[in-house]
C-alpha cells in the first residue's frame, strides 16, 4: 500500500493530472486536433470559424447537460431530439400568432413545454416502471409523429422571428456568442449542482449502485423523475435556442440529434454504465466531436462520412471506459490483496 499505490494516487505534477483525468485527455485531444487542422489550413482558427464552432457546439452542449444527469443514473433519453423539434416549432408559432410577444415569455413557454414532455417520460419510467430505453424510443417517435401532424408541412422562417430573438444566435459578448454564454452559465450551475449538492450526489449514487442507493434511503423513482424532467426542460430551452440559432424550423428540426448528444456525453467520460463522469467532461466531449467534424470538413472528407465516424467514436469511448474500469478494478484488487 506504500510504494506501488503511489502512481495510482496521481496528482504528482501537472502532466500527470492532465493525462489521468478524462477532461485532461480531452483538452489535449482537442488541442492536438486544432493544431493539426490549423497547420493544414490556417483559416481553421479565424475568428469567424471559431464563432461558428462555438455556435455549432452550443446546442449540443446544452443537451449534453441534461443527458449527463440521465446517463449518470444508468438511464438514457432518446426522445430529446423530438422535444427540441416540437418546442422549436412552438416558439416560432408563438412569434407568428402573437406578434410582439416578449422573447423571454417564449423561452419560458418552450421550457415549460419541454418540462411537460419530459414529465411524460418521467411518469412512464419512474411510476410505470418501463425501462428508459423503451420509453424514450417510443416517445422519440410519438413526439416526432405528433410534431409532423401538428406542423403539417408548415415552416417558420427567419422573417417571422423578431431580430432581437435571433440576436441570441448571432451577436456576441466579449467575443463569445450569447448562445454560448447561456450554455456556459448552465454548465457552471450543473457542474456545481452535481458536485456539491445532495441531489447531484444522489444521481451518482443511483448510477453506481441502484440497490445501495435504495438502502441508503434515496427515493430512486423520484430522482429518476427529476432527471427526466430536467432533461425535458433542457430540451425545451434548446428548442427555443434552436429557433434563435437557425431561424428556420420545419417538422424535421433536430431529427437524429440524440445520437450526437449521447456520443458527446459518452466520449466526454460519462460511463454508459452510470455513476461516473462530469458535465465538464461531457461538454468537452461535445466540443471534441464538433472540432472533429469541422476538421473533417476542412480536410474535405465527404459529409457522408460524419455519421460513421460518430458511431465509431461512440464505440471507442464505450470500449475505453470499460477497459479503464476493468484496469481500475484490477488495481484495487492488487492494492487490497494483502488484506
Amino acid at each position: 500500500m506504500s510504494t506501488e499505490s503511489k502512481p495510482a494516487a496521481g496528482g504528482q505534477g501537472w502532466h500527470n493530472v492532465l493525462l489521468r483525468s478524462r477532461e485532461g485527455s480531452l483538452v489535449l485531444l482537442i488541442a492536438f486536433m486544432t493544431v493539426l487542422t490549423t497547420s493544414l489550413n490556417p483559416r481553421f482558427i479565424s475568428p469567424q470559424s471559431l464563432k461558428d464552432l462555438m455556435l455549432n457546439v452550443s446546442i449540443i452542449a446544452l443537451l449534453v447537460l441534461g443527458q449527463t444527469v440521465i446517463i449518470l443514473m444508468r438511464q438514457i433519453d432518446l426522445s430529446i431530439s423530438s422535444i427540441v423539434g416540437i418546442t422549436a416549432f412552438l416558439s416560432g408559432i408563438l412569434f407568428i400568432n402573437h406578434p410582439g410577444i416578449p422573447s423571454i415569455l417564449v423561452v419560458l413557454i418552450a421550457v415549460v413545454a419541454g418540462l411537460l414532455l419530459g414529465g411524460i417520460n418521467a411518469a412512464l419510467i419512474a411510476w410505470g416502471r418501463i425501462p428508459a430505453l423503451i420509453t424514450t424510443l417510443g416517445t422519440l417517435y410519438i413526439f416526432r409523429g405528433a410534431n409532423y401532424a401538428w406542423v403539417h408541412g408548415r415552416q417558420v422562417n427567419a422573417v417571422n422571428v423578431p431580430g432581437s430573438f435571433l440576436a441570441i444566435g448571432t451577436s456576441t459578448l466579449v467575443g463569445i456568442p450569447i448562445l454560448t454564454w447561456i450554455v456556459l452559465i448552465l454548465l457552471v450551475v450543473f457542474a456545481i449542482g452535481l458536485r456539491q449538492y445532495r441531489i447531484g450526489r444522489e444521481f451518482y449514487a443511483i448510477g453506481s449502485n441502484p440497490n445501495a442507493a435504495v438502502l441508503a434511503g434515496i427515493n430512486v423513482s423520484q430522482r429518476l423523475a427529476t432527471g427526466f424532467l430536467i432533461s425535458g426542460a433542457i430540451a425545451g430551452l434548446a428548442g427555443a435556442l434552436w429557433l434563435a440559432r437557425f431561424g428556420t424550423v420545419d417538422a424535421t428540426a433536430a431529427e437524429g440529434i440524440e445520437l450526437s448528444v449521447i456520443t458527446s456525453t459518452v466520449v466526454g467520460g460519462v460511463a454508459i454504465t452510470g455513476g461516473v463522469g462530469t458535465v465538464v467532461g461531457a461538454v468537452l466531449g461535445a466540443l471534441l466531436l464538433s472540432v472533429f467534424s469541422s476538421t473533417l470538413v476542412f480536410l474535405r472528407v465527404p459529409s457522408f462520412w460524419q455519421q460513421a465516424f460518430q458511431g465509431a467514436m461512440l464505440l471507442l469511448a464505450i470500449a475505453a471506459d470499460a477497459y479503464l474500469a476493468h484496469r481500475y478494478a484490477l488495481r484495487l484488487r492488487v492494492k487490497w490483496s494483502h488484506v
Partner: protein
Amino acid sequence: MSQSQRSTRRLARRVGWETILALLVLIAVIGGTVLNKDFLTVENWSNLLANFVEIALIALPLSLIVITNEIDLSVASMLGLSSSLLGLLWQYKLPIPLGIVICLLAGALCGALNGFLIVRFRLPSLAVTIGTLALFRGFAYIVLGDKAVADYPPEYAEFGLGVVPYTFIPLPFVLFIILALIFWVLLHHTTVGRNIYAIGGNQMAARFSGVNISRLKMLLFIASGVISALAGIVFTFRFSSSRADNGTGFELSAIAAVFLGGVTVQGGKGTVTGVVLSLLLIGIINNVLTLADVASEILRIVTGSLLIISILLPNLIASTHERWRLMQRQKEITRLGGASVAK
C-alpha cells in the same frame, strides 16, 4: 422488480398472452372488415402481409436476443447498409446472386462486430448497438451517398411484388414463414432454445450449468445481422430501389412487435407464436389505418404507443395484483394478531 416479474409470469401463465393476442387479432380483423369494405379482399391481404415482411423478418432473431436479456438497436441500419451495398454492387454490374451473397456476408460481419463487442468486452448491448446504429447507417451513406439505384432487372422486382400462385401470400412472405418455422423449432424444441431461456432467466445459473453463453450470444447477433441483411435485400426488390436511408426507424416497429408479443424486458420469457401474432396485429392495425387514409405520422404515434403500452399494461396489472396480495396478507396478519391477543 423480481416480485412484480414473478407475478407477471404467474398472470401470463393463467391467462396466456398468446390467447389475448389471438383474440386481439380476431377483433382487429372483424373491426377492419366492419370499418372498411376493402379490408377483407385478396389484394389487400397480400398488401398487408407484404408491407410488414421486413419488420417481421427482423423481429425473429431480435426476439431471441431480447429473451437472452440483450437488445439489438442496429437492425434497421444493417438493413439500410445491405440495401445500399446491393445497389453499389449492381452499379458495378456484379451479378445479383453474387451481390446477395456478399450482402448476407456483410450482414454477418456487422452482427459479428456487435456480438464481439458485447461478448468479448462485456459491453452493454444497448450502448454498443446505439453506436453501431450510427456506424452502420454511416457505412450505408459512405457506400451510396445520396444516390439511389433503381434499375434492377425486372425478374427481381417480380420476386419483390409477386405472390405465390393461386394464393394471396406474397413471395417474400414465404421467406418469413420458413424462417418463423425454423425459429419456432429452434426456440421451443431444441437445447439451444432451452439455453436461450436459461440465459435470460438467470445468466449466472446458465453459466454454471455449462451453457456456452458467449458462443450462443455471438451466434444470435450474427443471425440478427444476416436476417437484417436479408430484410434489406427484400426491401430493395420490393421497391426496386436502394437508398442509404432505406428502413430508417424500422427498429421501433420490430422492438414494439417483440415486446407486444409477450417477450419481457427482464428476459427469459416469450414465444415465437406470440411474436408472430403481435406482428400480425401491428400489420393489421397499420393496414386499417392506411385504408382509412390516416397519415403516416399517425402510424408512428400508434407504433410508439403500442411499444409503451405493451410493457406498461403488464406492469400495471402486476403491481395492482401485488398490492392486492399485500393487502390480503396485511388483513390476515391483523386477524391472526387479533386472535393471539384475544387468547
